[in-house]
């Protein structure tokens, strides 16, 4: 925010300054030229943002008020029916419940694990560079590759997890074909994918914590846990804030790995909101309900982001 304000301030100062020097007669054309130049810079960007970001949202809001199969020439206006249908549909409410578990599991899990890895990698360990690379690697893999790898790992007959379960005398669960295990399985995959990125960002944050704070704490006789709680974690709060918001939004949009690994099943056990929207739109060709569900997701995301901004930002220290 502050950077934008500063830029705006600089611009207005520049304009005032520019207005001071030239004689009144030349003021207008100069102003106009500046203004046109400003437009030339801003309009292309603005145009693309409107076309690719705002217009789809607006059009989606309109579609959510219609009944349309994506092929018929006419979209029938139905008012809020799609919304009332969804909010009274048991399956959709089940989808919301699964989405909450999925998002909470992934966001909390990957934040905790990512931070733990970052703290470990911040220590002077042998082979640290290699481990850092390994930890980050899953983040750059495509969802399709991750899905394929984990389908193999989870395979109850041939998978890599089977011998591990075998060591403790247990049979590997049928991860992706069991309603009980499919959601935990998916969460594990996303944790594996997200952890490395979160660890890397945290690591950068850790290295920015001033050493003198630690020295002062050591002099005061603070133990490692106390130091972490009172210094490291609070000093990482801007990073945490950024990561919580981006991971939450990213997790709501999860799609590719679900498409590859479970297709929302068995039953509806891994149907999260994004998959539900896809299924309504491109399997059932029901654009109205898909758009209404997408609007609900949009609103939920705005609310969550606003809440996070309101409650988390209070606790953020920007040094």
């Amino acid at each position, binding site marked *: 925010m502050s950077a934008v304000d500063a830029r705006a301030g600089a611009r207005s100062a520049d304009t005032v300054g520019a207005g001071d020097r030239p004689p009144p007669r030349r003021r207008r054309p100069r102003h106009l030229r500046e203004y*046109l*130049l400003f437009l*030339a*810079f801003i*309009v*292309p960007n603005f*145009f*693309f943002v409107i*076309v690719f970001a705002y217009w789809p949202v607006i059009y989606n809001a309109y579609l959510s008020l219609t*009944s349309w*199969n*994506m*092929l*018929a020439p006419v979209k029938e206006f139905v008012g809020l029916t799609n919304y009332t249908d969804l909010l009274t549909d048991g*399956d959709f409410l089940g989808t919301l419940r699964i989405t909450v578990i999925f998002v909470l599991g992934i966001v909390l899990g990957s934040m905790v694990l990512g931070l733990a890895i970052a703290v470990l990698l911040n220590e002077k360990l042998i082979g640290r560079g290699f481990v850092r690379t390994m930890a980050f690697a899953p983040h750059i893999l495509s969802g399709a590759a991750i899905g394929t790898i984990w*389908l193999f790992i989870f395979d109850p*007959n041939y998978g890599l997890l089977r011998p591990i379960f075998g060591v403790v005398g247990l049979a590997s669960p*049928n991860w*992706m*074909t*069991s*309603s009980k295990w499919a959601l935990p399985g998916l969460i594990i995959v996303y944790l594996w994918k997200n952890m490395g990125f979160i660890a890397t960002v945290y690591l950068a944050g850790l290295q920015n914590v001033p050493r003198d704070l630690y020295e002062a704490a050591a002099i005061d006789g603070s133990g490692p846990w106390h130091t972490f709680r009172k210094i490291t974690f609070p000093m990482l709060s801007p990073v945490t804030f950024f990561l919580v918001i981006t991971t939450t939004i990213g997790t709501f949009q999860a799609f590719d790995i679900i498409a590859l690994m479970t*297709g*929302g*099943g*068995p*039953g*509806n*056990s891994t149907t999260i909101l994004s998959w539900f929207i896809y*299924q309504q739109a*491109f*399997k*059932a*060709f*029901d654009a109205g309900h898909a758009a209404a569900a997408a609007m609900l997701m949009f609103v939920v995301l705005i609310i969550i982001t606003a809440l996070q901004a309101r409650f988390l930002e209070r606790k953020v220290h920007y040094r």
Partner: protein
Amino acid sequence: MVAPARLSRRSLLAASGGAALALTAAGCGGGSGGGNGFAQASGDKVPDKYAKRTRVVVWHAYSGNPGTAITELAKRFNESQSDVYVEAQFQGTYDETAQKVTAAVQAKKIPDLVTFSEVNWHNFYLNDLLEPLDGYFGSGLKRSAYNQKLLSEGVLKDKLWWLPLARSTPIFYYNKTLFHKAGLPDRGPATWDEWRDWSKQIKGLKVKGKQVKMEAYQKVDGDWQFQGSVWQWGGAYSNGLNVAIDQDPAVAAGEWQRELIFKDKMAYMADSPSVDFQNQLIATLVTSTGGLQGMTEAAEKGKWEVGTAFVPKKEQQVVPTGGGGFGMLAYSPKDRKQAAWKFIEFCGKAENSAYWTLTTGYLPVIDAAVDEPDLKKRLADDPNFSTAVKQLDIVRKEDEVRLMVPNANILIYTGLQKIWANNTPAKQVFTDVAGQLKKATDKVRKNIEKHI
């Protein structure tokens, strides 16, 4: 020096901004053509030697052996005449192809011919996007050349909208080697009760340390095979547009499978039952004839023998058909539609139909194909190959709700997953599914009734 340089940089930036805008506008507005505003889908550059011909774009859903076969047919067609150039473009599964056609209609940039599944074509028909094909038959290809049972599945309101191509039925596969080990006869069971008795003899058999089970149910799209089960138990998914999946026969068929999984522990739900059959994790499997080639190859590699038979009987002996066929888009201009028909004529020649069947394992849709030397020999030599053709006598067209109501198949297989994976009683699942199906049907009922 400084001032002009600054000026030129500014004007350059302004100009490039303007250019970007202009480009975007052009991009958004481009792509029109043809009298009704529909342009042809783009693709690869047409080879120079075919540049002067009428270009026909075919979107198909075939990879693997069928993919090779349709590409080869297009190539042979292009070499066989000098007026039409066919470009066959692979678009993913049937569902993905249908999604892309939907998007193409919105973008007004369409292919001319599309291979739709037995479910998908209805949605395009109900929205008046398909061309009736009756008027195109002539000396090049007679209507009577087709297997009439399969052809009739593309007829609605006395007109033909969908032409059979990659049609199949589920057949019964069994592992002869395992059957032999278990002391079972070398044939398919006549009834499902006999099959269940046999499962007791299979129980305890192990291959590579793994317990062999009797069968597996396909997680996605398993509602196609299950429709056959419901019929064999004497029921239906629907009678006309009246949903019947919550009635006793369907519930009994569902309970039968639930017991096999959770009581007998001789079946399970699998991502790919075909792969599990090929790996000898299951001794029998009901799945498409289209998989025969893959099963045979896997069996040879694994040094065991595969057998095929008719799907067993319960109350009735009956199986559904399935698979894909050609639909022609009505908004394609007349000359391209006629050119596209030339390709259909070519595929309908007995020798080409035989080539297609031999390469893919799909049913011969042209009756005369079975008299072509290569196919005739194969049918005589390989009893597995002929099972599907013989089974054509007991096929039945699928239930209307599954065919015509968008999403019906997904609602059904999602319900089946709950039986197979969660051990939810079939009555409870099918009561829910019936409710959803009725709601989905009511939404499109008026339009369907107008079109049938």
